[in-house]
């Protein structure tokens, strides 16, 4: 940089000519506009804004001017450098934005490629259906009760008013333990849980008992030697068949939807009196099978739910509950059947074979 020029020579300061300054600016703006990349722009910046650029040169010449001319020349060169600087900054921003845009495009991946390296697990739908029913009843204030699967004969039969002559106690239906006089069986229903609960607790009792049960049936489309039941038992003062209907209706709604109607008729079970059989309106055809029939309900418009009734006085007595003070009701159904109905499962085989493809269809909740 030179100091103030005392020996002013107009030739030597030609770079400060207004035409020359304007031309330098025009050159710079052209070059800036032509820069196609950030690298190009860097070269343009050096050429037109660098130390050897015409405007830098002109700036240095200002010092050589007589003081009277300095202000005007300074202003002219300053404005010129400002225009070039602004154009460079604008172009820089444009090119950076373009680059950023391009990188995002270039970094694109194919997100539709398969990504699951570990297969997903699943719960068994039998357990999920039981859980669904249990949760709804727990929500209404009931509790869940359980018992062993290998059970005392007395709890499985006698206490339930299934006396020694009852057909179920012959070898046809029941797995007996060896030796047969051990008085032990694989429970044939979840009802011994009722007995255990009534022996253990004082009324009021409101329990739901899901679990595995056993019968000596060979596996076929509708039978399996090991299956699941869910049973409800209530013992309290003043319970009537109307409460039984209410509980069953709640049950049906949980499984098959709000507004599922039921109808009831008399039936017979040794452990209940009066006894009741419940049908609910077919969820597939809503009770109107039409001329083509309905595969779900077989064309009747109704589906059988299961047996129920008011706990037989003899059962209460065997558990030490005074039947003149308390009354109770009980009902239950097979979970496999509920699963078949609600989820269109075709037969028992799928539910008992443990083929992973079956469970995986249901995930973690039904």
């Amino acid at each position, binding site marked *: 940089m030179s100091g103030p020029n005392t020996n002013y020579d107009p030739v030597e300061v030609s770079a400060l000519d207004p035409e020359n300054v304007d031309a330098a600016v025009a050159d710079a703006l052209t070059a800036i506009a032509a820069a196609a990349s950030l690298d190009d722009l860097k070269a343009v910046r050096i050429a037109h804004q660098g130390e050897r650029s015409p405007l830098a040169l002109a700036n240095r010449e200002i010092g050589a001017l007589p003081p009277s001319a300095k202000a005007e020349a300074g202003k002219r060169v300053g404005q010129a450098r400002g225009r070039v600087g602004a154009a460079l900054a604008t172009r820089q921003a444009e090119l950076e934005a373009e680059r950023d845009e391009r990188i995002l495009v270039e970094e694109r991946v194919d997100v539709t490629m398969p990504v699951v*390296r*570990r*297969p997903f697990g699943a719960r068994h739908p039998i357990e999920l259906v039981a859980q669904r029913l249990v949760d709804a009843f727990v929500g209404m204030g009931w509790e*869940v009760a359980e018992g062993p699967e*290998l059970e005392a004969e*007395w709890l499985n039969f006698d206490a339930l008013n299934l006396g020694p002559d009852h057909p179920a106690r012959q070898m046809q239906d029941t797995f007996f333990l060896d030796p047969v006089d051990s008085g032990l069986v694989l429970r044939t229903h979840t009802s011994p849980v009722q007995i255990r609960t009534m022996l253990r607790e004082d009324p009021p009792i409101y329990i739901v008992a899901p679990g595995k049960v056993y019968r000596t049936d060979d596996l076929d489309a509708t039978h399996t030697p*090991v299956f699941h039941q869910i049973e409800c038992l209530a013992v309290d003062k003043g319970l009537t*068949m109307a409460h039984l209907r209410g509980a069953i209706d709640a049950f049906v709604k949980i499984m098959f939807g709000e507004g599922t109607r039921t*109808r009831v008729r008399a039936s017979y079970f040794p452990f209940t009196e009066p006894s009741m059989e419940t049908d609910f309106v077919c969820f597939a055809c809503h009770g109107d099978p039409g001329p083509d029939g309905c595969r779900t309900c077989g064309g009747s418009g109704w589906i059988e739910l299961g047996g129920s009734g008011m706990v037989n006085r003899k059962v209460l007595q065997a558990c030490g509950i005074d039947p003149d003070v308390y009354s109770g009701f009980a009902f239950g159904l097979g979970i496999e059947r509920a699963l078949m109905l609600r989820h269109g499962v075709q037969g028992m085989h799928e539910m008992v074979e443990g083929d992973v493809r079956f469970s995986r269809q249901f995930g973690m909740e039904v």
Partner: protein
Amino acid sequence: MRAPLTWLAEYTDLAAGARGVDVAASLVSVGLEEEDLHGGDITGPLVVGRVLEFEETIQKNGKPIRYCVVDVGQNGQMVTEGRHQEIVCGATNFEVGDLVVVVLPGATLPGGFHITARKTYGRMSNGMICAEDEIGIGHDHAGIIVLPRLLGEEHVADVKPGDDAIALLGLGEETIEANVTPDRGYCFSVRGLAREYWHSQGSPAGGFRDPALIETPQPNESGHPVVLRDEAPLDGVPGCDRFVARVVRGVDAAAPSPAWMQKRIAQMGMRPISLAVDVTNYVMLALGQPLHAYDLDTLGGPIVVRRARSGEKLTTLDDVERTLDPEDLLITDAGDGGEGGEGGEGGSETVLGLAGVMGGASSEVSATTTNVLIEAAHFDPTSVARTSRRHRLVSEASKRFERGVDPAIPAAAAEMAARLLVEHGGGQIDPGVTDLDHTSRPHAFRLELAEPSRIVGVDYPRERVLQVLRDLGAEVRETEDERYVEVTPPSWRPDLVNDSPAPDYAEEIARIDGYNNIPSITPTPTEGRGLTHGQKTRRVVADALAGAGFTEVLSYPFVAPELADQLMLPADDDRRRAVRLANPLSEERPLLRTSVLSSLVDVLRRNISRGQKDVALFEMGLVFRPGGPLGRAPLPSVAHRPSEAELEQLYAAVPAQPRRVGIIATGLAEQAGWWGSGRLVEWSDMVAAVEAVAAALVVPVVVSADADHAPWHPGRCARITLTDGTLVGHAGELHPKALSALDLPPRTVAAEIDVDVLTTASDRAVQAAPFSTFPAALTDIALLVRSDVPAGDVESALRRGAGESLESVTLFDVYEGDRIEAGHRSLAYRLTFRAADRTLTTDEVNGFRDAAVAEAARAVGAVQR
């Protein structure tokens, strides 16, 4: 139980225009479940045909097919083409000349099955020769109907080809079939069903005509002698409390029973057999009273009803010789030695039949019988039930006696049968009438009229209750206290006789009034405590495993005795002590599993056999661990609550059944794909799965090596315990020999853990620990240790030595090889330190690190590299 509408209509008034579906629906409304509807859904032509010739060829599938030419009279092809009907038939149970049932094109069979001429097995079949199930008269599909066999030779004597088979078989009439519950034995009769239908219509006055109300002669001394001698009544109840015997002489037993009777018997799903048998069956179906007809001339003396003597034998009508039990009640002929004969002194004493179950062959009515004795008796239901079950012999009679037969009608039933025999077989009824009647009317019960309302939850007015009771046939006597009545149940309702029949009467009122009048009231329990900790724990365990990629399955717990060997269990292993079923489904699998893995292996094998290569399963369930020989569970009285001692004994007799989770996996743990190759499942996946479960329950566990736990690989088995040493379970790779014995792929891994232990261990409120917000300091160390030193021990030593500022220890590298001393390995750890109250200085961290290394050196001989 079936009932043709025409028969029902004889005893009660059917609603105007009522069809089978309507009658069935009415019966449902009073508690008789609809089983089926028969008849009325066939539209002709359905005709009688005679097989003229057939050509039999064996098809590619090995099935014989007969191309038949059948004479169907002036029908079908005879009309259009002037020749006999050509029909293809898959059955082979007939011969040329047999009379059969033919359905011709244009007809509709039950189920809306339209018949057309169609090509089958290469030829046109112009209709079909019918089997029983196809026309809805039975369930037999083993072959086609051959009419003489179905109806009896003599009954088809006048039948000729072309006759309308719909009329012949009564198929135009509808027959309802209802499912009868065990408490309603009286509904095993048209009489009973008609009564129930009448109830369903509101029991209008005069609307039920009881067929048992017929005039019967007074009993006298000149009837056939009968002795009721039950020395060993069951539970004090005599085996027989009523025995009516009537005799018809000069009857032509070979005479056919009338067509109307045969038709009804067929409609009821039974076969017409002979006049005597048909008449007894007909009366049984009408009234519900089982009868038995004897050839009187085969009887040598008085009829004695007694229990069997041990060793006695009887050949029943089904041609089976049966060894009798002293509890069996018998009908015997005392023979000409008279009735004194204990031990057969007369020599001609004969066992005639198992009372109420089945007769014997010796006294059967035959075509040459002329004198018939009709037995109408009442037997103890329990006695009949036990005999029926003991001999696995269920008959129409036993079915009824077991459920209770009306003890008031034997005389009427015998009279009705005698009259029918005479009407259709000739002869005359003997004036002698035997009727030993030891029955008594049931005691009256004092019923509180408000009780049914209290049980059912419907407010039944007093008059309604009284009306229903009377309609039911009960005798109702009002008492001075108008809140009560004395009720004597009708003779046909033994189910209403018990210690406290109020609920039974409530059911009667409710069902006659209509069960659907019962309102629906949601019960409102007050103190629900939610799921128990154990119940929640099980969900956490299952959800954690499913979340970790395992699929839940369920397996049957039945296992083979050889499994213990396949699992290489030592001789004294507790898992060899299994419970045995007395009546297993398969003799090969009589034991109950003692571990979940023992049945889970079956499920894994099944998945593999179906082409699944990468399988990761778990099952949660009970295992059966008797610990020793089974005790004997008592059978206390049910009249009251068992004593505490009895209950304790009862519960103690039930073997322990801990809840376990079994986990098993094979194949790839991580799939191969565009990202690279997959990773095979290995022992560590099982330990990780168990740790995932423990972590979900916040239960700290300790992993150690277990070189001696079958069926695991001795070098790849982790024993997992709680910090107090309680065993949680085992995890790792299975023993190669066990895998080969179990026919499972090499390197299959498994774990089994005790859910009950985890439940107890997690049953507490987790307390929050404070955590530091100061920066952490990291330092790495490499330790040289002998190869047999478990990494778990090294880590424990480091943790002990490092002090409480240690936040975590990570094993980030393991090296074994040339660069270090043989028999040693190098373990590289990253230690992370953090103080609760300050930023640690480098000097402090180095001090902690050195202390950790020093402890590792002391405890496991580690040398810092």
